[in-house]
């Protein structure tokens, strides 16, 4: 039997990347889960083995000598040519382009690093889910089944609806971890494109939709009724907006 925690939280726990509350939660889970217990022992054995075998290779004496010699060399080395004007111009142009892109993609975001990081994480989670073999959830077009599965495996209730009549077919749901906290993802398919809607509880007030893009993916993020939603897909942005409206009016 597979364990969803084993894939998402085990390594975070092992690497001391979970906060106190989440770590305690995982420890409670581990008392009843043999698989996680066994895997944790395996991870510890592997780490001990790497340490005991002393495979860390410190710098060679000759490398240190060469670096010291270069650092104290009187004459300029061939590798250290002074920066030319066009280098600076190119760098300045690149910065300008980045600034323009940022301004265009998400005007509400550019002084909100946290939100931008979060969006990046969500897009990556979506991209990961498209990799072959990535299935950590339930495939079903029955909203009640998906909702039930998410409620059973997750720690919070998630609204799930099928919008097949509006062109968005429910494909299933899964659990993921974004920035160390569990999130639910409800998976739709619209016009041949997979659309993930990530959902997690929030303490923040309702907020209107904010949009952005990263790589080839667009996302729309909004908050309603103490839940945060983020829909992400490579589908037409209009379609993602439409799904947002459908979900917003049914929650």
């Amino acid at each position: 039997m597979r364990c969803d925690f084993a894939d998402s939280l085990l390594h975070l726990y092992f690497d001391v990347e979970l906060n106190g509350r989440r770590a305690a939660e995982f420890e409670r889970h581990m008392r009843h889960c043999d698989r996680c217990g066994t895997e944790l022992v395996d991870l510890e054995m592997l780490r001990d083995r790497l340490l005991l075998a002393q495979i860390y290779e410190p710098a060679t004496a000759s490398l240190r000598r060469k670096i010291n010699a270069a650092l104290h060399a009187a004459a300029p080395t061939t590798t250290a040519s002074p920066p030319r004007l066009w280098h600076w111009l190119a760098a300045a142009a690149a910065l300008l382009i980045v600034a323009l892109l940022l301004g265009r993609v998400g005007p509400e975001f550019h002084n909100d690093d946290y939100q931008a990081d979060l969006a990046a994480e969500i897009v990556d989670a979506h991209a990961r889910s498209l990799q072959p073999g990535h299935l950590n959830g339930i495939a079903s077009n029955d909203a009640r089944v998906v909702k039930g599965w998410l409620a059973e495996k997750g720690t919070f209730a998630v609204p799930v609806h099928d919008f097949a009549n509006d062109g968005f077919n429910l494909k299933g749901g899964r659990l993921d971890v974004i920035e160390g906290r569990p999130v639910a993802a409800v998976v739709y398919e619209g016009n041949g494109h997979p659309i993930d809607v990530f959902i997690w509880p929030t303490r923040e007030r309702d907020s209107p939709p904010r949009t952005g893009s990263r790589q080839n993916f667009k996302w729309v993020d909004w908050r309603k009724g103490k839940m945060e939603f983020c829909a992400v897909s490579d589908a037409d942005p209009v379609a993602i907006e439409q799904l947002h409206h459908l979900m917003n009016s049914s929650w």
Partner: protein
Amino acid sequence: MNDLDAEDRRRFEQLVLPHVDAAFNLARWLLRRREDAEEVAQEALLRACRFFRGFHGGDARAWLLQIVRNTCYSWLEKNRPRELMVEFDEELHPQAVSTPESMAIANEDRERLSRALESLPPHFREILVLRELEGCSYKEIAAITSIPIGTVMSSLSRARRQLHSALTDSSQGACP
């Protein structure tokens, strides 16, 4: 190299040089050959020296390792591009080796671990070296490799799984 004035050079020696071991170790595991690692680590250090004025404090190790890994990948692209494409190096797939009994068990395991680690794709090797040998946090790994934290997490678990199975393969028959 002498772009730096005396004060900068003192700071460079104080902040960056303590991490030469980390730089060499990462290059050694990314490139798999010590001679190449020495050459590339040296080049990375020279580069670090040249860019040092752009370093405004913070984590000097992460800053240096970022330069090292970028230099390693550029070097691989130029000299051994095939390695960046292979998912799993069959030639280096660890085989069960029968070693003379006189050989110390630690050495034997060291050899087996090295071969198993070298059989993984470069980005898995890199992430394992940073986490297990350098003790970097996920945040530091994300900064060094310029990949998002979520990807660090998922790559690390996949890398560990691959290393584990490479080791299991190599020990079959050798130690029952």
